[in-house]
């Protein structure tokens, strides 16, 4: 990696800190209810109406192999935009809290440990350390690849 800084949006789910490339995030909205989609696996919380656009919302916590997120007053939805090879895809992610946008220089990002993170290694872009806390930088393209999500849904329905 070239030594340059990138901006990350950091957020918290169940006291764990995550970061995501700022370029992939579009906006943060307040959680105001969600429409559940019938027969969906747990990691798909449902859909929301984002100014006339129907956007699927993912429970990132389930996707990363943890317990489902508990909805509370401060829960919010991070809207991200993925530009995969086929088409652009807008998704919402549930988070307990959104913290800040931080600059992290490439040299401060360490590779994901081969094990121990309890998250599939390919989902992790790297680990950054800030104020004695570890921030797991997620690779949104891999974690939320529409193709893979669709496969998971298909598997659930069978």
């Amino acid at each position, binding site marked *: 990696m070239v030594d340059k800084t990138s901006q990350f949006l950091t957020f918290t789910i169940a006291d764990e800190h995550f970061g995501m490339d700022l370029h992939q995030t579009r906006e943060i909205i307040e959680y105001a209810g969600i429409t559940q989609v019938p027969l*969906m696996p747990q990691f798909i919380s449902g859909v929301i*109406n984002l100014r006339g656009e129907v956007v699927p919302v993912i429970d990132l916590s389930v996707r990363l192999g943890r317990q489902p997120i508990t909805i509370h007053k401060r829960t919010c939805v991070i809207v991200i935009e993925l530009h995969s090879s086929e088409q652009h895809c807008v998704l919402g992610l549930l988070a307990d809290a959104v913290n800040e946008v931080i600059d992290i220089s490439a040299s401060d990002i360490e590779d994901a440990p081969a094990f121990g993170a309890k998250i599939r290694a390919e989902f992790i872009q790297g680990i950054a350390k800030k104020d004695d806390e570890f921030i797991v930088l997620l690779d949104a393209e891999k974690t939320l690849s529409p*193709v893979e999500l669709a496969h998971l*849904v298909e598997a659930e329905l069978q």
Partner: protein
Amino acid sequence: MSLDAILQTFFVEAQEHLESMENMLLKMDEGECDDEMLNDIFRSAHTIKGSAGIFGLDHIVNFTHVVENVLDRARDKEIEIDTDLINVIFKCRDHMQSLVGVTLDEFNAQADLQKIDNDLLTALAPWASTENIEAVKQTSTATESQPENKLTDDGGTDKLWHISLRLSTDCLKNGMDPLSFIKFLTSLGEIKHIETIIDNFPSLDNFDAETLYFAYEIALQSDASLEEIENTFMFVQDDSDITILPPSATIGDYLALIDKLPEENQRLGDILVKCGSLTRHTLEQALASPSTEKTVSEQAVTDQPDESPAEERKDPNATINAALTKQKQAKSQAPEGKQIRIDSSRLDHLINLIGELVINQQRIELLSKDSKNPQLIEAVDDFDNFTNQIRDAALSLRMVPIGGTFQRFKRLVRDTSQELGKEVELIIDGADTELDRLMVEKLGDPLTHIVRNAMDHGLESTEDRQAAGKNIKGQLKLSAYHEGGHIVIAISDDGNGINKVRIREKAIEKGIINNDSQLSDNELFHLIFHPGFSTAETVTNLSGRGVGMDVVKRNVEALQGSIDISSQTGLGSEFKIRLPLTLAIIDGFHVEAKGTHFIIPQATIIECIDLSNHQDIKGRHCINLRGDMIPYLNMSEIFNLAPSQKMKAADHMTRHTAKRELVIVQFGSDVAGIAVDRLNGEIQTVVKPLGPIFKALKGIGGSSLLGNGEIAFILDVPQLIELAIANEIANKVSCPESINSPDK
């Protein structure tokens, strides 16, 4: 316009000409043959050649030239039109289509294309004139002239045109090199003289290399028609000032030209004289008395006999002028018509906006009802009315008749029947039935597969038909019609029908069904949509590989449609594709189950009844509705719906009054009920696709926003019934016949 955009126009137009050629050829193939058709084919080929020439697409020009030459001979009755010739021209047309698709460099690099080129040229040879190529060119140019011009044609090739070119100054920026036009003119005839007018050339400080400062006055000796010469400048005529004076032009025309051009009259006159378009004498007389509307004939009488031949050609001839005007009119009528071409993405954008409008309109309607202000409600009602009209009008913009798609099958049927050695008659019915453009585009492939299959497997060989006492000519019918909010496209043949025994054997052999499976006819027929299924004894290059029919089903389903097969042994089979009218905005019926909102497409609904008034038959999910047994499915069961928090609270209060409603839906020949908790009434809804993640979700075709911003799911009724059947089979519920729809 960039060069790419202009090239694009060329491709689109070439495509249209090729299609029109194909249609004409098909008609000729059916035995209708008149001069007008030949003319049309010739014109198409000629225009393609002409336009290709402008872009320097020499591979197209060279090939098309020979085709055009043959066509021209046919037009002049020098050669007979027979099936062999039509076949060759069909192939040439196809080859032209491939040529249009490649650049010159690609052509030179592709040996197979060049081979086809050569083969076809050889094939054309018997009809082409036997003289050498130069002579061929001569014949072609000589005969290209329109008959009306021949009236005056005493000097043969001596016809001198005058072309005044004042190209747009941006011409070069647009990628048009005036030299290429001039070069192309040489293919129409001989350029006798060119005067370049450099009056506009600026001082070097102001010089811009990309601006065209030159104007040209050209004398062209050619037998080409006005149209052909005009076509040379087709791509620049919009913003340029181009005057083409035919050999028959009167002195008046020239004076008009001189007046029109910005340069000094005397100087222009000199140029025209230099070009040989006018004689000095005529010019002087004319300029001296500019108001005199003297025709050249009067001039000619007074002129000395040593005048250039140009003079004699300017015989005033009322008929010629009339003919020319007529020709011009005919030309301007044809392409303009009453249609405009719109980029489809703009249309989609409009439809999207109207979708938003519809949603907002619903929100306002909701608010107005809450306000209980009668005037407001009335105003909103009017608004509602107009919104509906706008919606319908906008949607109709996307509707195109299916005829164009059907037309393409004429060719397919013709070629396939020759290949198979079967005689097939194609009947087209309901060609003006309109459907969404998106659907028309996506229907091409499935229809092709079905038509090919019908011809290959459905229709018997000529001998078999004769033995069965049928008309030797097999019949294939393509029809389209409306049926209960859907569009049905039916492909039927009068062949042998689908061999049920054979399908069964094959399915067992492939392990798709068990030896003892009981299947209805419909279920049996649907086995042919199974991937990798083919009953054909031999694999031909048309069909029989077992790919295709599963693609057909998938494509049709992707359009929210369904496909039905019926077949009678010995009498033929019919494939019916049922499609929704449009994909963007639908009329729906809003229902609720356990707090989740659903929309059932209005077109599928027959009626709504109160379920609590009906008893289930013997504990099954079936009711007796006026003597008919109607199976029904429970929305909350099939979608595993749990009441939301909000619902739980509400439910608690209304528990005792909760009643169940049943919506009776019909799809194809199947009738079923959908049990829901609440009916909320009719609603116009904009279909929002749920996105790729939810592709595997059956029974829900999309989503939609309600007036209050909540999201509702649009039910896909056939899929929903299919899902119910799958669930029952999985659960081994002991009443397999309770859902009265074997195939859905």
